[in-house]
Structures are given as structure tokens and as C-alpha cells.
């Protein structure tokens, strides 16, 4: 009797245990399926991210090399020197002021606002001539419109027509300088400013051809290869000017000093 009873209890107990074990096994299986799914999904995302990243690196490399290598069909502006500068002023002027700039660079704008007047005066009275290297390395800061290149192209196009007009145009470009990460000035605004500076309509109409775009890319690379690390870089008779670029005075004094030397 007691044996039967104990047998019955054991049987019930075993069944309950079995059920618990089965439930636990089902739960375990569910958990391990969830874990496996998470790993597969995670690894897939990782593969995808690596793919996207690699693809963008390869794309960037390709576009950079074609950008730098599209020197075939390169047209150098007549107004420019071999070193990539547009020279403004009397060739025989005693002092040469060299400026590496990007029309998008805010500090170049600050430099222009502080020293533009003094430079124009020194050019006008024959003390100095200005060599402008219009670079385009901030092209990525104009929401894809390549403002630096467009402005530089417009600047040299005007310079081909007349250097003095180009200087006025450059001052207007800095006076209306667009903010970084904006779309830059539109082509229409560039044309308007050039006309305001005194460029004739046929010169302005040529902006759209982007004739000097490859040249601008070339001289930008060339400037960096020659050791320029940023803009504005200002040189007086070949010596880098290390004084204060952003307040009126120091540069003008240095020009006077060089003229009297």
C-alpha cells in the first residue's frame, strides 16, 4: 500500500519535473535562438557599415585623383604666373606682397577687411604689387556648390581682362563673403559683383564655362606642395609675414619698411 502510494507520488513528481525541464528547455532554446539572431543581425550590420565606409573611401580616392589629375586640357589664365599667382600692380614695384587665399576662408575675409585698403593704396601708388594665389581647398564647405572654385575661376577670368578690376572684384567678394557651410554666393551674385566691379558683360558671361577650374585645382595642390599649410598666408618679398594679419597697421608698416629698405 505504502509502496504504491510512494510510487504514485514519484510518478507525479517525475511528471512535474519533466514538465518543468521541458519548459526550461523551451525557454533556453528561445533564448539561444534570440542570441543567435542578434549575432547574425549584428554581424550583418557590421558588414554593411564596413561596405559603406569602404565604398565611400574608394569613391573619394577616385574623385580626388581625377580632381588632381585632370590637368589634361588645363588652361592657365594669361594673367597668372607659372607659380599660380595673379599679379596686380606695377611689375617694377619694389615690394611684392604674396597672398594665398580661399574666397571661402573667413580669416581671409578678416585679413581683407583689415588690410584691403592699405594694399590697394600701396598698389595704386606703385610701392607694391600683389600676387594673389586663389585656392579652392575649402570647396567642401559650400554644401556641394564648390564656391571656392567658382569664386577663384571668376576672379582669374576677370583678371585676364583687367587686373585692377579683379582687385575691386576680390574686395567685393570678401565684403559679401558667404558663411562656411552655406551654399556660397550664387553664380548670378558672382556675375553681379563682377559687373559692379567694372567687368564687361562678355567677361562675366564666361564664368559659366568654368574654364580655369582645373587650373585652380592645380595651383591649390601646388601651393600645398610648396609648404603652404593654410590661408591666409602672406609673404612680403618672399618672406612669410608673421605679424598680426587681422588688425590694420602691422602689414602696412611692414610694406613701408620693405619699400625703404
Amino acid at each position, binding site marked *: 500500500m505504502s509502496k504504491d502510494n510512494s510510487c504514485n507520488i514519484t510518478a507525479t513528481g517525475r511528471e512535474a519535473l519533466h514538465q518543468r525541464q521541458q519548459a526550461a528547455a523551451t525557454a533556453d532554446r528561445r*533564448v539561444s535562438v534570440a*542570441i543567435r539572431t*542578434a*549575432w547574425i543581425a*549584428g*554581424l550583418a*550590420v*557590421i558588414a554593411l*557599415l*564596413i561596405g*559603406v*565606409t569602404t565604398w*565611400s*573611401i574608394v*569613391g*573619394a*580616392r577616385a*574623385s*580626388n585623383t581625377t580632381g588632381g589629375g585632370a590637368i589634361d586640357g588645363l588652361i592657365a589664365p594669361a594673367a597668372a604666373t607659372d607659380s599660380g599667382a595673379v599679379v596686380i600692380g606695377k611689375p617694377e614695384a619694389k615690394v611684392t606682397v604674396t597672398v594665398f587665399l*580661399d574666397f571661402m*576662408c*573667413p*580669416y*581671409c575675409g*578678416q585679413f581683407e577687411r583689415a588690410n584691403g585698403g592699405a594694399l590697394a593704396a600701396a598698389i595704386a601708388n606703385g610701392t607694391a604689387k600683389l600676387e594673389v594665389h586663389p585656392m579652392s*581647398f*575649402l570647396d*567642401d*564647405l559650400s554644401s556641394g556648390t564648390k564656391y571656392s572654385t567658382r569664386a577663384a575661376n571668376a576672379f582669374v577670368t576677370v583678371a585676364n581682362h583687367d587686373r585692377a578690376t579683379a582687385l575691386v572684384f576680390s574686395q567685393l567678394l570678401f565684403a559679401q563673403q558667404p558663411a*562656411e*557651410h552655406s551654399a556660397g554666393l550664387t553664380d548670378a551674385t558672382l556675375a553681379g559683383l563682377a559687373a559692379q566691379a567694372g567687368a564687361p558683360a562678355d567677361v562675366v558671361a564666361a564664368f559659366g564655362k568654368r574654364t580655369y577650374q582645373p587650373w585652380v585645382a592645380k595651383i591649390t595642390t601646388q601651393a*600645398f606642395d610648396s609648404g603652404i*599649410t*593654410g*590661408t*591666409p*598666408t602672406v609673404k612680403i618679398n618672399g618672406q612669410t609675414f608673421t605679424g*598680426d*594679419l*587681422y588688425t590694420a597697421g602691422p602689414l602696412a608698416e611692414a610694406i613701408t619698411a620693405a619699400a625703404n629698405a
Partner: protein
Amino acid sequence: MPEGFLPWLRGLRQSDRWIYSTMLVSALLSLTASFVLSVDAIILAADPHAALACNLNAVISCGTVGASWQASLFGFPNAFLGLIAEPVVITIAVASLGGVRFPRWFMLSAQVVYTLGLLFAYWLFFQAYFVIGALCPWCLLITLSTTLVFTSLTHVNIRDGNLYLPQGAGRLASGFVRADLDALLVAVWLLGIAAMVITKYATVMF
């Protein structure tokens, strides 16, 4: 691959030695970056023109990040916070490697404070990425190392049950960590951040 390498690796990942070593290395990286950025901030304060020239490699920058209001949200350079906080993490990591066990409330406090730091670091990252539109390499190193410190701190706190989580959540969290899903999550996260940076700046970087 030798038999049993994966189990060995997974065991290592759960060990104090591994967790606190990675915490130590990440905190040292973070401290270094904070130090560099603090020194930069002082140089910039002394001579605002020091960073004015638009640096090419910092197309990325023009001193833009350092000069932004976001860079000193609390009225002093953010990097000072790293100089204050990271030595504490370094102390915790070194002491723990030496066998010290901190009370639960202590580890929970560390977790809370560091979580705030992580949120701040990511707020800065997204500000730099979307609003300032410039990135500085040292700031990116801080984003990375802060993430790694947070990861190892969270890992150890879940493993040791220091977070006072309700029972269900605690079991879920420790199961998650035991299955190494935290490592997977962090890998996906960091790769995502790297992909964001590279796809946006690829033409400048490569």
C-alpha cells in the same frame, strides 16, 4: 584556430583583468586627449590668433571647434571635465586590478556620473558633426575613449549586479553580457560613428 580559443577569449572578456585593463587604457587615452585640448584652449585664450589660419588638415576646423560656444558650455573648456573625471576612473581601474572591491553604491555612483559624461560627449560629437560642421581629431579620440570606458564600467557593473536593477531586468542584462552581445552592440555603434565621419569627410581625409 586552436580548439577552445573562442571559449578562452570569451572567458577572458568576462575577467576582471580584461575589463579593468581596457578601462585603464581607455581612461588614459581620454585623459591624454583632455590634456591636449585643455592646453589648446589655454593657448587659444592667450592668443586668439593662434588658431586663426584655416589649417588644411583641420578642414576639420579653422579652430572652429575650439572657438565654438559648445566647446565651453559651462563657461570653461569642456576638456577640464576630462581632467577631473578620468583620474578617478584610472584610480578605480588600477585599484580593482590590485584586488580592491568597491561597494555597490560607489560603483553605481561612478556609473551615473560617467553616463552623464558619455551623454555630454555625444552631445558634443553631434554638435560638431551637424552644427559646427567641423571635427577635431582629439575630440574624436575623446568620443571613442569615453565610449570604451563607459562600456567596460557598464559591463562590470552588470556582471557584479551593482546597478540595483529589478530582478527581471538584471537577469536580462546579465544574460545579454554573458552572450557577449554588449561587445557586439559597441562594435556596431563605433563602426556606425566611424562610417558617419568617413562618409561625410572622405574627400578631405583620403
